[in-house]
């Protein structure tokens, strides 16, 4: 009589399941260590020393941020404080944020902390997406800071009666029902002036995160619809 084949043996499959699961789990844990190191938040020294981090430190709010093509990476990357011409950040050009570009590490960190807490306390991601995750009832906020609508040529500064991007955003967040951009309006969530400032800092910081080119072409396509 032939021996029973291992392929129809429950024990063999149980062991296989255990080994496969164990192997996948160990690989995931190992990758988690590597990824955690790479996505740990940078600090002010990194910015001053020109060290590019995937998630820059909170004082990135002192710098001008843009989203530009990197020939090497093959997609857009956040550029902090000016472009060296090859898609690398220079960390030089500053930009005023509520009138200042000299926030200390503590000040910037506490603004970011307030903003991140606010983003959760107001359930932002149950209408919007952050880094593409959340609900689809309102625009993605990943690079909202870089949206031309809030810039000098956009509609939002005039609409809110403010002269800077951050002030226009903060004003909108406090009274969204007064500035409708669509029949679908953001409700008034009781956001205070202080919270709004934190939220804008959170948005500016988020726009500096290296998201591997997501969203593609953000803010670079204007008036393309209907061939205009």
């Amino acid at each position, binding site marked *: 009589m032939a021996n029973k084949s291992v392929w129809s043996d429950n024990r063999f499959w149980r062991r296989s399941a255990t080994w496969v699961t164990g192997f996948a789990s160990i690989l995931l844990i190992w990758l988690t260590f590597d990824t955690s190191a790479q996505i740990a938040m940078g600090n002010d020294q990194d910015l001053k020393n020109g060290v590019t981090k995937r998630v820059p430190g*909170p004082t990135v709010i002192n710098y001008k941020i843009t989203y530009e093509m990197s020939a090497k990476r093959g997609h857009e990357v956040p550029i902090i404080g000016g472009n060296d011409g090859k898609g690398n950040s220079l960390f030089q050009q500053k930009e005023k944020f509520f009138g200042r570009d000299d926030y200390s590490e503590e000040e910037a960190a506490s603004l970011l902390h307030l903003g991140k807490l606010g983003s*959760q306390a107001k359930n932002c*991601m149950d209408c919007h997406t952050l*880094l593409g995750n959340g609900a689809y009832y309102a625009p993605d906020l990943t690079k909202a800071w870089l949206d031309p609508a809030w810039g000098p040529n956009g509609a939002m500064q005039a609409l809110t009666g403010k002269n800077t991007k951050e002030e226009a955003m903060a004003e909108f967040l406090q009274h969204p029902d007064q500035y409708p951009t*669509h029949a679908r309006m953001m*409700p008034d969530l009781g956001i205070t002036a202080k919270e709004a400032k934190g939220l804008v800092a959170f948005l500016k910081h988020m726009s500096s995160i290296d998201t591997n080119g997501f969203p*593609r072409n953000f803010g670079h396509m204007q008036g393309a619809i209907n061939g205009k």
Partner: protein
Amino acid sequence: MANNHLTSESKQLATWYFTFAAILFGAQLLFGLVAAIQYVMPGFLYGILDFSIARILHINALVVWMVFAMFGSVYWLLPDETGIETIGIKIGKLIYWVFVAAIVVVVLVYLLIQVGPADATTIWFITEGREYIEAPRWADWGIVVVALTFVANLFLTGMKGKQTGIVTVLMADMIAFAGLYLAGMFFTDNISVDQYWWWWVIHLWVEATWEVFVGAIAAYGLITMIGAHRKVVEMWLWIEVAMLFGSGILGLGHHYFWIGTPEYWWEIGALFSALEPLPLVAMFIHVLYDWGKTQGAEEEKGNEASVINNKPAFTWFVLNAFGNFLGAGIWGFFHTLPQVNLYTHGTQFTSAHGHLAFFGAYATILVGMMYIAVQGTNGIKIMKHTKASIWGVSMITSGVVGMTVALTIAGYVQVLVSRAQMGATWAAYFDGQSGMWFVQAMDWRLIMGAVTFLGFLFLAKDLLTTGKNPVHER
């Protein structure tokens, strides 16, 4: 309950879990309808029950009813599998009421308080504001206690009674399921780190541990409903576990394409998540093959009667086999490669996939378990379809498929107009949303949502009344 045929306390507790699960299922659909109406009529309940709140309730009710029905399923099958009464069932029953009370409080706070100031008290007592796991921190700890009690019930019973392959898989799976919840219980200012661990809960639940759970339940169902051979069923189960965890654990990488994490997740996520549909094919074949095999063996003996002793439950189980493959497998694969996902990430595409996958992979089989419980509770030998059961399953299924098709079309519009053509800005977003095809798709989604809800009413009526229906063989 009059004429209750249950002698096992564990099964009794299971029926409690199923009952509350069914109520939450109804709530899920109701709040889903509110959110769907808001897409069509943005002024609907504006400032009273805004979209964000309706959606929180929609998706939280979804997760919680499924967890309830999963716990119920385990309490139901434990006495059958282990041959003994569940150990610590008194504490299990007590914990059930704690769980229900906590959920009622959480829901009331969602409804009445909604949002809070940007500080830690909001996170602890109102909302954590993280999709799917918005429940405030105090409730998180409550869930941990509840889950630990449940896991203790399962482990103590599994170790003392007969430890079948199904019980062994459930023990390993449920400890991972409970443990993973801890990954979602901390606050960080770093949104990339936040989402990295958030996905450990969401993905490793629904694309790993829950899927393995479904494999175990399907195995139990095949044995109890058609008398499939345990050795064959359990061998398949182990193969499925290997394939599900082998692909699903590292398939987590497909959520790490764009959240700040390194590029190597493109390759890892693409490869392993592309493999994720394979075990779902295996599960589909498993169910249909075992059915045909068992029926064929009976026919050879000259027995022409169906081998199925619970028609409605088996219908839902077969729907599960197909729906899991279609919703999780095909609709998931559609947008899992980074080259596609760059444009589909964060669009109605994801929503289309979410609707069909949660329904196909989980809702179906859990409703099937509810029918098995109705059968057992009423001492029915062969349970048949009723008009209501057929209307229920047909309307719910066509409703969900209709919503999925509508959302897929809406997703296409978003991908092409808002993303590819316009570059994803605020204005681009609303250009897509205002497009005629998007608007029509949202109308159809609402209509199909209403069909789903009507189907649910039939289902609820059937679950409540079919037990006493004389059509069944007792």
